[in-house]
């Protein structure tokens, strides 16, 4: 099956089950403290994205089902641990599937990372998105896990490039190369997190613009199904150096907006999410950030619109 036919089939499967497609517009990451605002005032938002782990109890699943009746919804998981050599947690996957069936999201995604390991003392799940060595072995592990999830859900998932602080000595592939190979092996899509590119490249030494170009050169445009934008912190270390921390706790910085504009000009409009997780501001601040992304999306759409022929005198 080709990538394009897989995406088409997976999307149509999800839509045939009643999923509302995510528009190529700017959406907002919905967090629990904003549920009351959404429930009571039904604010303007093109779509919402949530972490499914927060809704795996009956009461909160009820709440999310109410949101899904009014807005297109995307599920952005942090718990699949797609890079774990010990495989996918069957219990977690069945909970995710139950929620997916209930709220019928337009998109489902998780990260190119791992969190779970099997220790002699038993299974361990660390609540962080830990980096992978980019090796052929890791590629086979991630591909097998992505296959399992896509088979269980009966749909394509998107995989997000991670924010990282370190690089493994054993890596033999670049990150974009690794993700491109993963899309070929599994038919998964890519969730391109522009802030993560800025964070990871600055932490490891390099040029974020060059890294973005690698992504856009190596990954087929059709496979990039969503974009994430967020703020990050620049924190001093004891060593006197500084580290970019992907804390999702501030407005999108100018460097990330510039990278985003480059990506959108090249890709065309894509569903774009404003993520904000720590020091959560009032909901209207998120709407302002989404409006800024929408402005860039609208410009790109205008650039791509066919130019009307001049009227002949």
């Amino acid at each position, binding site marked *: 099956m080709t990538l394009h036919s897989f995406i088409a089939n997976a999307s149509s499967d999800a839509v045939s089950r009643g999923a509302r497609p995510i528009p190529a517009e700017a959406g907002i990451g919905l967090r629990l403290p904003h549920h009351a605002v959404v429930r009571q005032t039904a604010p303007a938002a093109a779509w919402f994205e949530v972490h499914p782990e927060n809704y795996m109890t009956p009461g909160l699943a009820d709440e999310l089902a109410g949101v899904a009746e009014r807005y297109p919804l995307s599920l952005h998981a942090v718990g699949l641990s797609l890079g774990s050599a010990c495989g996918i947690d069957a219990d977690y996957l069945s909970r995710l599937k139950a929620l997916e069936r209930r709220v019928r999201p337009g998109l489902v995604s998780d990260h190119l990372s791992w969190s779970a390991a099997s220790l002699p003392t038993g299974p361990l799940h*660390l609540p962080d998105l830990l980096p992978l060595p980019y*090796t052929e*072995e*890791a590629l086979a592990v991630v591909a097998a896990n992505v296959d399992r999830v896509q088979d269980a859900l009966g749909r394509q998932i998107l995989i997000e490039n991670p924010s990282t602080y*370190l690089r493994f000595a054993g890596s033999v592939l670049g990150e974009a190369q690794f993700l491109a190979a993963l899309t070929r092996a599994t038919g998964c899509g890519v969730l391109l997190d522009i802030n993560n590119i800025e964070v990871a490249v600055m932490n*490891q030494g390099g040029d974020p613009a060059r890294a973005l170009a690698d992504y856009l050169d190596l990954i087929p445009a059709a496979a990039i199904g969503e974009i994430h934008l967020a703020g990050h912190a620049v924190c001093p270390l004891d060593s006197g150096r500084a580290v970019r921390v992907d804390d999702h706790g501030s407005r999108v910085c100018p460097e990330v907006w510039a990278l985003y504009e480059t990506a959108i000009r090249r890709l065309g409009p894509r569903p774009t999410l404003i993520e904000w997780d720590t020091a959560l501001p009032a909901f209207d601040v998120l709407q302002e950030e989404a409006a800024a992304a929408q402005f860039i999306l609208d410009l790109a759409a205008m650039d791509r619109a066919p130019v009307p022929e001049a009227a002949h005198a």
Partner: protein
Amino acid sequence: MPDLISLQTRMADALLHGRFAALGDQIVAGPVAAQEALGLHRNTVLCALSNALRLTFPTAEALVGEAFFDQAALAFVAVHPPARACLTGYGADFPAFLETYAPATDIPYLVDVARLDAVVEEVGALSVGADGGVIDLGQMLLILDASIRLLDLTYPAAAIRDAIETGDDAALGAVDLAPGRYRRVLWRVPAGAAIRPLGPAAFAFLAALLDGAAPDTALKAALAEGADLIALQTEIFAAPFARLTMSPTLETDR
């Protein structure tokens, strides 16, 4: 380079216990040193788990303060790290851990406060108004809310929680901390979890029903606590977490 499963086992153990030296040769030196990068990951893990406990045990944290709570949380995490991705329910063992946590021995009511916090969190995650057990009383059915939970505490944790939630320092200071029997029923309401006191008979009756006992067995349990029927009627049959309905067989007969 070790295989992936070995690398992940070593890295998980290193992050959990702060033993980074074993990984140094696996990481390329960059602008952020390997030890610093691993320290950031460890900090993320510990903060996420402490925050998960803080959200589940808000009264316990308010009672002992942030610094004390964080120390207790970190000690708990070291011996009870999560095994699953979904952190809902993580910390169910935290009250039991506090029983043996030496710095908390001077605060005997802390364990009960944590027990109440845990059940409030558990009930708050359930659906509102879902039917649970159906008790056949002959011509009537007693239908219990699916979210009902019972707590039999030694200290007045609900009074402490109320005072802390409302920021009423005077009420908190006035709580009588003498040990006793504090029987409480909790169930799901739209705003979260409702908490009510139950008398000994009503508590015994409801506990027996929730354990699956037949109504006559539950009644015997209530009688053993000196039941009077008026108490059962007001505390159970007329309570918002229970409703009486006519038996379907009887409705058909009509």
